[in-house]
């Protein structure tokens, strides 16, 4: 899709003024927004997104599609998202390999799935439906998880089968790989070896926090060294992808995130580490 790696940031409220400054352009190749924040009737949020879109490609990243819901997807959600897609013409449309809604209950959290054939059938059915409504392939992001069910396959085997059956791509969150690897005791490099590398279109970089017994995916800190190491290993295996710093809490000034993005640029530009 790209000739070279692309580098972007998540667009967050504290940085709106920077991105709308008519006298300066933020040096990014794209921005990513949380889809649901802009799935509204009108007003300032959509006005801001329209103006940012005039200057940068925009990726739509969702948190509420609930691709793993056993009782299917909400039609009103898909219609709202389709309207936003038609208005913005995004670079990507993505959501998570997780579930958040069952029946009339919506947890607003990315809850874990068992990696079973039944869950795979459900996820693939839902992705097919979403892609049919949206008229284009989605990217699905690997989650951070704090609970692992007894399953029939590993997460990376699940992702590979999901991509094969639906034609979707992957948004690889290397922080999530690291968090889940520590929490569940698997090797991040085995994970990277197992995923279908040719399906990866985008990478998320983020930080996490240490809980009492588990690592927690908080997105409130700079990217730590351990996650940069997983990023290095991932970049060695992938073709050109869109790389992004994802910061959702304790958001620093834009210049700090741009410095972190520069680190990603420099690391991605190094020669292959396996050849070193």
């Amino acid at each position, binding site marked *: 899709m790209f000739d070279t790696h692309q580098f972007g940031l998540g667009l967050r409220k504290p940085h709106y003024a920077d991105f709308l400054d008519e006298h300066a352009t933020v040096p990014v190749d794209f921005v990513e927004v949380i889809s649901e924040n802009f799935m509204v009737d009108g*007003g300032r949020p959509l006005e801001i997104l329209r103006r940012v879109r005039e200057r940068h490609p925009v990726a739509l990243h969702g948190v509420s599609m609930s691709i793993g819901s056993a009782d299917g997807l*909400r039609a009103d959600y898909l219609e709202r998202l389709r309207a936003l897609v038609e208005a913005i013409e995004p670079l990507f449309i993505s959501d998570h390999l997780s579930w958040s809604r069952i029946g*009339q209950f919506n947890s607003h959290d990315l*809850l874990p799935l068992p990696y079973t054939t039944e869950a795979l059938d459900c996820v693939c059915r839902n992705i097919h439906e979403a892609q049919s409504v949206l008229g284009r392939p989605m990217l699905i992001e690997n989650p951070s998880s704090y*609970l692992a069910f007894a399953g029939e396959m590993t997460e990376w085997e699940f992702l590979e089968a999901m991509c094969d059956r639906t034609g979707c791509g992957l948004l690889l969150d290397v922080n999530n790989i690291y968090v889940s690897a520590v929490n569940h005791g698997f090797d991040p490099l085995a994970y990277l070896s197992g995923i279908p590398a040719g399906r990866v279109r985008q990478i998320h970089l983020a930080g996490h926090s240490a809980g009492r017994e588990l690592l927690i995916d908080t997105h409130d800190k700079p990217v730590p060294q351990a996650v940069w190491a997983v990023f290095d290993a991932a970049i060695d295996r992938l073709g050109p992808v869109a790389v992004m710093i994802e910061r959702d809490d304790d958001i620093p000034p834009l210049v700090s995130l741009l410095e972190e993005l520069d680190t990603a640029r420099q690391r991605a530009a190094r020669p292959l580490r396996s050849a070193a």
Partner: protein
Amino acid sequence: MSLLAIQEDFRLWLTTETDDANLRLGGESAPGLAVYLNNYRGQLMACLTASYPMLQAWLGTNAFHGAAALHVDRVAPSDWTLDAYALNFPGTLIELFPSDPEISELAMLERGLDLAFVGEDAPATDVGALGNLDWDRARFNLVPTLSTYLFATNACAIWSAIAVGSEPPPAVLLDEPVCVALWRHGLTPMFRTLPQLEAIALEMAREGRDFGQICSSIVEIAGPSDGLQWAGEYLAGWLQSGIIQSIES
């Protein structure tokens, strides 16, 4: 365990913290269940806190968090947008503070402003392009973000004082309930308390009555001289403040 059974147990765990659901999902061997519970409640508390900053300033942090935590206990989120979770908080506040109606009214005002903030776009009428209208037969299409509330207290004055960092006035019950109109002008949500006659006129405009009928009703109440003058002033105010989207005659 089927996928549906897992998801139903997760719902039970997050909303009721029942031991049965916890055990079926892994119990003590699944410390992550506490993380998910903490995330769930934390998200909802953060949503309410972000949606009602004026109310929090009025109640104080502890009382606000107590009310918000009780709302989280009582009400499970159902919509796909987290913002929607905040919408029925005023209902919980009415139950929690029956003797302090300014609390739920302050919340209703904040909720209304939030709804107007992301409401449907509608350019207001260009006053200069109105031309030669037959005003007697003029009917008004009001902007879709317009809503009205009937407040029994001085919640609007409390909101205004907090918004500019002033000491808010003590809460008082008004002699008569007052109509509050709330809408978005351009990109900015606005509200205004309306004199009783203007509230009647605006309600008639929303019902599709023409300006002649509105004038007649106002004149009937206020007399021919004052009534016509006030009706004209109301109309000018609606045009200037972006309440009218278009006029048909």
